[in-house]
């Protein structure tokens, strides 16, 4: 150790005693922070170089960015991100909240149900995508089943409908993530002080009123947290789309992460792929920075109160 100062033995000994602590906390933290920072910086650098198959040095200015922004794929992907992001985040949160409220009624078999709803979270997005690609395929999934039952005019062919295909990804995403939202909401619901609820009951409020007026308002911080976590899921969604629709029909379900992968690893354009990745990062920052600012403001306010 190089910081062995010529001081009395006591502090040195104390420092040594705390060494494992430092090693366990700081080394992984620095490594992962370094990992993120270095690779983000490297990707940003590559996005300004003429790299194609392998990274090369050079400077092309904003050319990769203008090129990516001009492609149809990126435009479609970005529009889809708006639809998918909004649909996925809002609907997943709603479904999660609904499940949480139902489970909160001290129903029987709560543990079993909770596990069932949480279980999809344990499945990888690729599996979810593949299974739903079979379920949603009109020729072999839900539509065929209902048709075979006798309701022959039943149509559920969103998977092959260019305008609706993006919603199939929303459906599969909700199935996968609503259990996660449920778990967070449930924790929130359970942490509402019993005294508050008692007081409302004494005041003569019915169960619906108690939820809308007493319990849900206290859930706001959790709602925001769930939304932010889901939104960053949405922005980086990749494997789900790849397994479910492959970006199709045509280009109808392209998402930014798919475009990045496509440029980098399918088309041999590391420069353009990196530019698309940086654009994705900026989108993410657009979500996370306001959230961070909001948290900061809240903490300041709490500290003052």
């Amino acid at each position, binding site marked *: 150790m190089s910081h062995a100062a010529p001081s009395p033995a006591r502090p040195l000994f104390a420092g040594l005693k705390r060494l494992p602590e430092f090693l366990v906390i700081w080394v992984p933290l620095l490594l992962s922070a370094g990992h993120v920072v270095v690779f983000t910086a490297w990707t940003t650098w590559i996005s300004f170089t003429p790299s*194609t*198959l*392998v*990274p090369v040095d050079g400077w092309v200015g904003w050319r990769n960015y203008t*090129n990516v922004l*001009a*492609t*149809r*794929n990126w435009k479609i992907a970005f529009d889809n991100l708006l639809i998918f992001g909004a649909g996925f985040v809002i609907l997943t949160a709603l479904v999660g909240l609904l499940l949480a409220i139902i489970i909160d009624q001290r129903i029987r078999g709560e543990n079993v149900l909770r596990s069932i709803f949480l279980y999809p979270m344990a499945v990888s997005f690729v599996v979810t995508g593949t299974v739903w*690609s079979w379920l949603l*395929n*009109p*020729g*072999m999934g839900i539509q065929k089943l209902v048709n075979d039952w006798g309701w022959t005019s039943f149509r559920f*062919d969103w*998977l*092959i409908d*260019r305008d609706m295909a993006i919603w199939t990804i929303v459906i599969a995403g909700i199935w996968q993530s609503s259990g996660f939202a449920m778990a967070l909401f449930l924790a929130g619901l359970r942490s509402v002080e019993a005294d508050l609820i008692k007081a409302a009951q004494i005041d003569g409020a019915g169960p619906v009123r108690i939820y809308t007026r007493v319990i849900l308002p206290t859930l706001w911080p959790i709602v925001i947290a769930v939304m932010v976590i889901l939104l960053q899921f949405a922005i980086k969604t990749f494997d789900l789309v790849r397994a*479910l*629709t*492959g970006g*199709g*029909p*045509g*280009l*109808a379900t392209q998402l930014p992460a798919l475009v990045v992968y*496509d440029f980098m*690893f*399918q*088309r*041999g*354009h590391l420069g353009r792929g990196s530019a698309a990745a940086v654009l994705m990062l900026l989108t993410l920052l657009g979500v996370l920075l306001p959230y961070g600012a909001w948290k900061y403001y809240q903490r300041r306010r709490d500290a003052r109160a």
Partner: protein
Amino acid sequence: MSRITRRTLLAATGAAAITPIAHAQAVKPRLTAISQWSAGSDGAAITALGKKFEEKGGTWQHSPVPGFTTEMMNKLRAQIMAGDPPACSQLKGPEITAWSKIAPTLNLDAIVAAAGYEKVVAPDLARLHKPGGKWAALPLQIYSTNMLFLSKRAMDKAKADKIPVTWADFNALAEKMKAGGVTYPIANGGTRPDDGQKFEAALAGISPAAYRAACMNLDEKALKGPEMKAAFAQVRKIADWMDPNTAAQHYSTFLSRFVAGDMGIMIQGGWAQGVLLNAGFKLDDFIIAPGPSDNGKPVFLLNADAFIFWQRKEADLQAGQKLMAELVMDPAIQTMYSQITGSIPVRTDVDLSGPGWSDGQRRTASALKEAVAANQAVLSLAHNMAQENGMTAAMIDVITEYVKNRSITPDQAVTRLAEAVEGAR
């Protein structure tokens, strides 16, 4: 770049000193190889090749990367950047030239000359494997991506027995099938190369010259020519005969429906024969014929798999590379390989009359001969033979959207394709 430093001089002297010793010692040849061939008939074929390699006393270390060729390239890229390329990897088409610029490849000229291989390879094909005029890669097998696979049962339903020659014949047959109760006259998967293949088959069949100018040379005038519009119109017909429910499924998902006559015609490469046989179907279940050609002479959309050899210093790997190169050029090995996968050998001097070859393979081989004679052997766009991946992907974007979206007119598609080419140049 090639400044001579003391270090390289030293290394060169060292290498010169070591090489004779390496030759004198009988090292056990070893080969590290990567390819996309992991399962099915492709997997079986490369495993058989590995067995032959081991029979000759070598150590075979093959790491397959399943998926499209681009997936395999990702591993190749990682290995090259780490300074540890495989001794040999699969690679094909213009990518050979592109990749040979980022890492040193082996100069195979001496081995190729010793085997007399150059004389038995079609010149257009040979050119792709000689970046800078030196052999760096060896083609192994050839497919045509526009072969017609006709389901026997669907033909029976249509009461048809004539193999279509032109696109008009093809359209008439599809109509007959539809009328005869074949639900979907065209069997097709929903992946991007599938859609690309329909377009290249249409354009090359309508005019091989226009295909060469537009898809291979990216000639601006040809890209906006009347043949392009006609090709897109033909693709629309094909798309309307396909099962709309395929979504993003692989074409092989539908093979049983194809054989059963629920679907009638596949436009696929010869590899589909290997996949069909590997799935337990019989040669009697289907007919293979060259793709439609409006001038009556066969059009061959060339797709050739090849191995590229990367420079390695290890003596055992070098010995392995030499052995592998000799095996790949060996007519017996090419015969064995093609009989498993359904391709035809690269060597033009292999006799396909014997047992073990299908009528489809014989037709493919004679189609290649006639197409080369008529200057109608062209390089496949959908399977990355005509252009590098970036350009190919930009063009397929337009084609796959067109196939899936009935509201795009052929005129609009032509304009979009020309724009996509401009954007990707």
